[in-house]
Each structure stands twice: as C-alpha cells, then as structure tokens.
C-alpha cells in the first residue's frame, strides 16, 4: 500500500487539451454544480474502496514568507498574479499500486466541464516517501 498525492493546479500544468480551457467563471451555474457533484462522488468512491485519506482545496491567494534574521519580522513577498505554478487543491489516497493511483487520477480528470464534457484536466501524481523500508541482508 502506498500513499499518493493527487495535485490539482490552477496554473503550471502541461498544455490543456484543446477546447477544455474555459475559465470556470464562464461556465453555467448547472455546469459548476455538476462539476462539484462529480468531485463529491469521486471522494465517496475512494472512501467506499477504503482508499481515501484526505482532500483539501486551497485559496489561490497566498504569499511567500521567509526568515530574515534573529529578532526581525518575517519577510513576505507576493501575492503574484502571474505565478507560473499555482496549486488549487489535493487529494491523498492510499492504494495498492501506481497503476491504481493513475486510474484514480484519470477518473478525477474526467470531471465534467462546459457542456458536461470531460475536462481532461492534468492531475499531478506524486508518491509519498514512506516510513517503512524493506528487510535486506
């Protein structure tokens, strides 16, 4: 069993499939509702299979923060309207194989968009580093 992070990006993904790149604020209300309902079903399905760990959405508004020396306040930078990579949210799943992780990501990517057609959205799949390590020698 291995955990995988399925990352949804606002930006910073490979080239979208032609015709699917319509900003969500230009969808109809029903299209938005259908999309959200599909996401809930994806989560229910993962729960039902005993694979669900976590799902979270992130605000697109955020800043970069860093240490600036002892006794000084943290330095902030941003927000950047044009940051190349912007993460929208994630799901964490615990599955038997990489193949199953890809299948779950593809299912997520088939969420309906305008006209009820699949969005074909790119999902970034990242394996977790584990705690365990195998017996050898």
């Amino acid at each position, binding site marked *: *069993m291995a*955990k995988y992070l399925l990352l949804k990006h606002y930006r910073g993904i490979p080239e979208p499939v032609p015709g699917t790149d319509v900003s969500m604020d230009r969808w109809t209300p029903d299209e938005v509702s259908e999309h959200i309902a599909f996401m809930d079903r994806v989560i229910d399905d993962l*729960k*039902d*299979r*005993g*694979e*669900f*760990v*976590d799902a979270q959405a992130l605000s697109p508004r955020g800043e970069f923060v860093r240490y600036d020396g002892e006794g000084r306040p943290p330095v902030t930078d941003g927000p950047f309207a044009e940051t190349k990579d912007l993460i929208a949210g994630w799901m964490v799943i*615990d599955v*038997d194989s990489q193949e199953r992780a890809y299948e779950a990501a593809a299912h997520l990517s088939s969420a309906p968009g305008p006209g009820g057609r699949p969005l074909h959205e790119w999902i970034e799949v990242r*394996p977790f*580093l*584990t*705690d*365990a*390590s*195998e*017996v*050898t*020698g």
Partner: protein
Amino acid sequence: MNGPLGDEALRDLTPQVLGVLVRRGADFATAEDAVQEALIEAVRRRDAPGAAAPADPKGWLVTVAWRKFVDARRAASSRAQREIRVSLEPPPGPTEQADDTLLLLSRCCHPALTPASSVALTLRAVGGLTTAQIARAFLVPEATMAQRISRAKRTVAGERFGEPGEVRAVLRVLYLVFNEGFTGSPADGVDLAEEAIRLARQLVAAVPDDAEAAGLLALMLLHHARRAARTGPGGALVPLDEQDRSRWDTTTIAEGVAVLQRALARDRLGPYQVQAAIAALHDDAPSADETDWPQILEWYDELARLEPRNPVVALNRAVAVGHVDGPLAGLRLVEALAPDLPRRDAAAAYLHERAGNLDEAARRYAVAADAATSAAERTHLTRQGARVRQRAG
C-alpha cells in the same frame, strides 16, 4: 494490563473464539464483527470498578460473541423482513480445542484479496487489533480502514470455509506486516513487527511441519534482534556494518537460530529459510569485518537458484560477490541489472567506494537518494554521498 483478560491474552484468544463461532455455522463476516464487539465489551468490563475476571475467559468471550452474532443476525433478518432463523442458544459445537489459526489466516490471506486488504483483515480477525489501531498504524482515517476491512470480508464471503488455503499466501502477508513495522516506530502501542512475530509463532504452532513457516519466523527474529541498533538519534538509519553490535538482542538471535536449525533439519529448503540463514550469519559476526561473506555468498547462490527471476535477490547477491571476489566483480553484476531496479544505484555507490572510485560513488549515492522511496533512506543516502565527497576532497 496483564492477567487472564490482559490485552495480550485477549488478542491471543481472538482467533480461537472466531474459530468456534465459524465452526458453529456463523458466517465469517458477521462472526468477525461479533468477536470484535465481544473484545471491546471484555475490556470495558475488565476496567470497570470492582470487576471480577471470569474464571474461563475464552468461554466467556465465546458466549458474549455468540450473543452479539445472534443480535446482528436478528437485526439483519428484521431489516429484510425475513423470519428469524437463528436461535439464541448456540448449537452444540465441535471440539473447542480445534486449532483454527491456519483456517482463519488463510481466509484472511485469500488470493482474491489485495495485499493491503489481507494485511488489514489479518490484523483484525486474527491479531485482535481494533480498526482504530490498524488505521493509526497505517496512517489512514479510521473510516477508510473500516471500509477496507469490510470490503475484504465481502470479497471472501462466498468462499467455503473448510480446507485451509495455501500457507505460502499467509507467509507473504505476515512478511508484509513485518516489513511495515521494520523501521517505522510503534504507532499508538501497536508494534507491527512484534505483531507479525506473534502471528508467525501462532502459524508455526498450527503447521509445525512447514519448514518455510519456521523459516519466516526465524527470519523475523534474526532481524528483529538488531532493532535497537538499527536507528540512531532522530530515527536515522544505521547500516548493518556501522551498527553497535553490543546492542543486538542475543536472546532473540539464539531463538531465531534454534528455530532456523529445526527448519533446515526438515530438508525442505525455501527462500525464507535461506534469507534467515543469511541473517544468522550476519548476526553471528562479532564485527562487520569478521562477516563470513563466502558462506553468505553460498546462501545467495542457493537463493538465486530458488528465485532465478527475482532481481532483488540478484542485486543482493552482487553485493556479496563484491565482498568475496572484489568490488569490481560485484559492480559488473550490478550494472547488468535493470537501471530502474530499486537500490541498484545505492549498491553501485557502495561498491564503487570500496573500489576507490570516490567521485563515481558520490554521484551514484546522489542518484540513489533521489530515487529512494522512504524518507529515512533518502536522508541516509544523502549523508553517505556527502561523506564520500568529503573523502574525495
């Protein structure tokens, strides 16, 4: 909590009680839930003020579990608007002494189940752990683990419950449980490595003639004995050749060796016995330099004959060759293996350092760290790379 209703004692009784219910005709899935509920009730009663322990804990658990089973069936029957077919009084059961451990283990490790499902179901139905404990040990929500277990039970629901299944499938699952607990720290009192050893002991008692079951138990003991020396401050991995051998548990090593010797005497060699023999040779060396590599290599030759298509065996054998015939001989074998084989670069780095190729060793350690699947391993390999680079100057 010790005594007749201590946690350990209760969990030892789990497969026995479940076995009794199933032999009396209870379906596996409902019976398994009923036993869990009975265990919870036993703990509640035990911890209540002024509680007196029952004289016959197993008989008490069977009675409570059977009542829970009947309640569950009644609820299901009335839901389905069907006639109640189960009676409150348990039918006269067959001998309560029957050892159902193998029957239950092979049910939980049924080939139709995924490894993760088998592991979870085994820990609950035979190990007597709660769903919450198993969920915490595997870092998933309790609801997810509950669903995994109930799906697994549905998958095996239609299977006939008579002949025990393959012992080999059970061995694989117990080996997985042990590996999960190998470097991870015990989560919430659940020590998966010790749990695997406990289950392996039960299995060996159930199939005393199976040399590989004993081989697996020996393998676990011989590795478990090094546990205290295997991690340094902050959980850092300490490789075998750098471990403080005075911290190895000699009692456990002696037990592992004795179990292994009895297994080998049966003259039915298998991969677990061979791996245990290799572990025993490592455990036997007073220092890394005194390791009997020629004999270890002979065992790896044996393992490679038993598992000719296992690339991990080929990789470990190559490292042994590196110790016996020199690092360059080992490297030739390593480089012939598939580039994406896990730990191939780590083995290459190790042999390159021994051959004095420090730059190449550092480079390969970096590649290996990048491909590591565990955080502790990645840190270890990164540190090894830094150390070699420092040596190279």
